[in-house]
């Protein structure tokens, strides 16, 4: 591989790492805030999987970047404009319906994405995908069950789920976007073609929503920008918390 493509791969790994880190962080905010203890356990479990994934991606990205980068320097020393996670991951944790609806939509996406990434000719990415897909299959089973429970539960749970889907819809489009960097990496057999996942994702989601007697509205709005560091205002607040200790006591081992 040429230098340029190594760097592209590094950026790609960091992108995926940012997605996982911010998602894991939001999930971890549920700890001791779940509706009952079993769910505290379960949400923490999913959070852990994502933090683990983030570490895999970011340490790979750091390795490719060189120059002393580490998973922690990437997580703790970049400001909002340098983070490249997609926006859907950074939205505040919301209520339980929002958390589970987001999780469900992402689980369907991740299933397709990781499945495709297993075939990446980048061995590390392929290995991460193989490990992660197992977790995600389990997450998906769980989040599907919740879609049913909330969708078919009470009037209130149905409404909350529906409204969560409405709030999320416009943030899902970004999941299927390819920019020049990802297209170049796709060409090289490294990256996943996100565009190719959309229709399958959409069918799965539509079928599930039907079963849950809700729908993912298509109101024609969409918000994008995460890959260029153009975030919502929520990310900055998340980072001020995430990075506090490292920022307040720079240059230490923990």
């Amino acid at each position, binding site marked *: 591989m040429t230098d340029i493509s190594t760097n592209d791969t590094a950026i790609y790994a960091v992108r995926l790492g940012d997605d996982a880190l911010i998602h894991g962080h939001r999930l*971890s905010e549920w700890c*001791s805030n779940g509706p009952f203890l079993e769910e505290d356990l379960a949400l923490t479990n999913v959070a852990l999987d994502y933090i683990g994934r983030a570490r895999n991606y970011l340490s790979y990205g750091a390795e490719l970047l060189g120059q002393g980068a580490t998973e922690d320097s990437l997580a703790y020393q970049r400001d909002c404009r340098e983070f490249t996670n997609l926006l859907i991951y950074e939205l505040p944790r919301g209520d339980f319906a929002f958390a589970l609806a987001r999780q469900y939509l992402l689980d369907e996406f991740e299933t397709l994405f990781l499945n495709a990434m297993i075939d990446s000719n980048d061995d590390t990415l392929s290995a991460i995908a193989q490990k992660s897909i197992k977790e995600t299959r389990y997450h998906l089973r769980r989040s599907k069950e919740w879609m049913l429970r909330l969708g*078919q539960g009470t009037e209130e749970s149905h409404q909350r789920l529906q409204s969560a889907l409405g709030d999320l819809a416009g943030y899902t489009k970004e999941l299927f976007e390819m920019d020049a960097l990802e297209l170049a990496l796709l060409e090289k057999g490294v990256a996943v073609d996100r565009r190719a996942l959309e229709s399958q994702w959409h069918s799965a989601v539509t079928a599930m929503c039907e079963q849950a007697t809700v729908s993912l509205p298509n109101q024609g709005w969409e918000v994008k920008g995460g890959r260029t560091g153009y975030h919502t205002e929520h990310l900055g607040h998340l980072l001020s918390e995430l990075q506090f200790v490292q920022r307040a006591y720079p240059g230490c081992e923990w």
Partner: protein
Amino acid sequence: ATLEADFQTRIDNEEKIEPKDWMPEAYRKNLIRQISQHAHSEVIGMQPEGNWITRAPSLHRKAVLLAKVQDEAGHGLYLYSAAETLGITREELIHNLHTGAAKYASIFNYPSLTWADMGAIGWLVDGAAIVNQVSLQRTSYGPYARGMVRICKEESFHQRQGYHILMTLMEGSDEQKAMAQDAVNRFWWPSLMMFGPHDSDSEHSGQSMTWKIKRQSNDELRQKFVDQSIEQAEAIGLTLPDPDLRWNEERGHYDFGEIDWEEFYQVISGSGPCNRDRLAHHRRAHEEGAWVREAIEAYEAKKKASV
């Protein structure tokens, strides 16, 4: 009461009492009190550590802390289940927590103020808990004893992790060292209080010992904890905040200073730094989750009806 006599004989013979066995009402009540207090402690104990999950200073530490708090939720679950075998529901247990009828370990009414507190809590608070729990592995009620075996294994893992956090800080910058020492200063005495009042002042102890719900006295366990902690502190350069600590050749134990029992009773009675926050947090989460629990019930009912 030949039943009572038989029961005590089984206890004396170190047989485990199982849920379906006959037991004195007072034994049952005493157990519910103790197990539920233990369960609530695990659950409320998620808060001071949960408070640092979003601010953990490395991804490695964040994952370890998350896993630890997850374990605590798991312990809470085992223990609620053990309590439920005694004929009380989860809902009742939580209700008693919210009304104040059931207690949780007073140590969790102290705040976690810096990252070093994750070390001090792991090392000292989990350390003290283990000393207590090791002895409870042989408690007379089967489900509780088996729960303890499982819990002890994980707790000693947690204690090592906490110790490792402090060790890392003590090898770090001056600010880090000060942070570690400060955390230990704050958590040392409350940890000693975790073993409860002196044996002479302990309300429930006598009967609990006879029934082998408790296997060792508060003061015995506390002494064990003090003895083991001193070496560990020295090994990484920490000073325990007690000028009276010294080896007593005669007793074969360390002497230590008098505990501030006024503080102990104040914290128990509601004037701890975080009593109100802890309960308010649990109550809020529980209330916010009400609609979710209702949704599950409604969904399960619908599923049954459609079968």
